């Protein structure tokens, strides 16, 4: 099978690989690049566990071919922050118990990232609408909403 060369920047690092055109972006990120924080939950672009930022926009990487992302800048959960230097959204999820099993969490955090870019002071309804593309079976979403509010407040206070 013919392979295509792609170049992407993930979390600030440049990668160049030859890939099969059918390789899904999520498999590229996980299996080829080895960043396994992005999860696969449903494969039908409904659960949002595979959410990454593609040129700044939250997308479901299970419904994208890696070749489509050629030349793109991608941010995965690993690029958002790490222990000791948590992003305010990550901190919110931690402080407000916005996760249990953690499987949906990376995608949920990146969906929240996009939400807070668009709505820096979101209402409960805006938060619910903003994460409706991300399914969580553990939390019932309430602590996630509180986590996002926490992050919103912190991000706003950082801007001031």
């Amino acid at each position, binding site marked *: *099978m*013919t392979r*295509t060369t792609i170049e992407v920047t993930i979390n600030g690092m440049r990668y160049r690989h030859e890939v*099969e*055109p*059918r390789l*899904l972006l999520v498999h590229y990120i996980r299996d080829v690049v080895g960043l396994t924080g992005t999860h696969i939950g449903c*494969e*039908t*672009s*409904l659960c*949002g566990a595979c*959410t990454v930022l*593609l040129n700044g*926009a*939250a*997308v*479901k990487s299970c*419904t*994208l*071919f890696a*070749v*489509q992302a*050629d030349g793109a800048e991608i941010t995965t959960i690993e690029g958002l922050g790490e222990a000791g230097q948590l992003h305010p959204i990550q901190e919110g999820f931690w402080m407000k118990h916005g996760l249990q099993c953690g499987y949906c969490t990376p995608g949920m955090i990146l*969906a929240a990232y*996009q*939400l807070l870019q668009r709505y820096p002071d979101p209402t409960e309804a805006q938060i619910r609408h*903003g994460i*409706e*593309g*991300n399914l969580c079976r553990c939390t019932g979403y309430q602590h996630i909403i509180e986590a996002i509010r926490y992050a919103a407040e912190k991000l706003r206070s950082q801007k001031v």
Partner: protein
Amino acid sequence: MIPAAFAYFRPTNVKEALTLLDQYKDEAKLLAGGHSLIPLMKLRLAQPRYVIDLGRVRELEYIRESGDQVLIGAMTRHVAVETSDLLRQRCPLLAETASVIGDAQVRNMGTIGGSLAHADPAADYPAAILALDAEMRAVSSQGERWIRAEDFFVDMLTTALQPGELLVEIKVPALPPRTGTAYVKVAQKASGFALCGVAVVLTMDQQGVCQHAAVGITGVAPKAYRARAVEQALRGQKLDASVMAAASAKAAEGIDPLEDLHASAEYRAHLARVFCRRALEQAHARI
């Protein structure tokens, strides 16, 4: 879920895309945002030998005004339609419709052209496209033509686009004064697609008489349709709750509604009537 193998092409302009389309004909599939095609490929319900990715055909990503029309490039993402100031001012129905498609991530990838060309009977856009009397511009190596919304949707997953044709542009009218629009949707809870979505355009004259009424309904029938009987019952009338309710009762007239796991034909027809009334009321209130 893993798609079958294919050969991949990434044209950067319409001309290149058309050449590829001519070359590979029905063995090729066009990839726009991918949110209709890729799931089908992962389920191996679609196994194209060639995939032509339109993602780099930048000339098809625009929203611009042209006289009393708004032109939208086929590769314009749902999110761009949703957040376009131009559309919000000149054609808010389309922006409103885009805002309830799928979810935020889907709207970031999905394109208006891809959605229309896929012609899912439960997609949101077709209702608005019909109600707006939009026109679709298709080009092929032979030339180009405009297709009226009502001619565009032929059947479930089937449009008037011919092999070798590429949908490149959607033209919607900038709405005249004293016009109210609304898109009201009840979603299938799992997929987020419309069980029933009703788009309404109402224009009143100075005296408060309905001059123009257009109702597009999606999700209910094998293809989105114009509820002509409803429109007729509104035109020339002063609109009050009872007129709108009586007109809405005709929302599923002459329709053979879909029936599936998620709703019976009877319930879909009922939803069409209820949400037609609600959409009319909302559009009327916005005038």
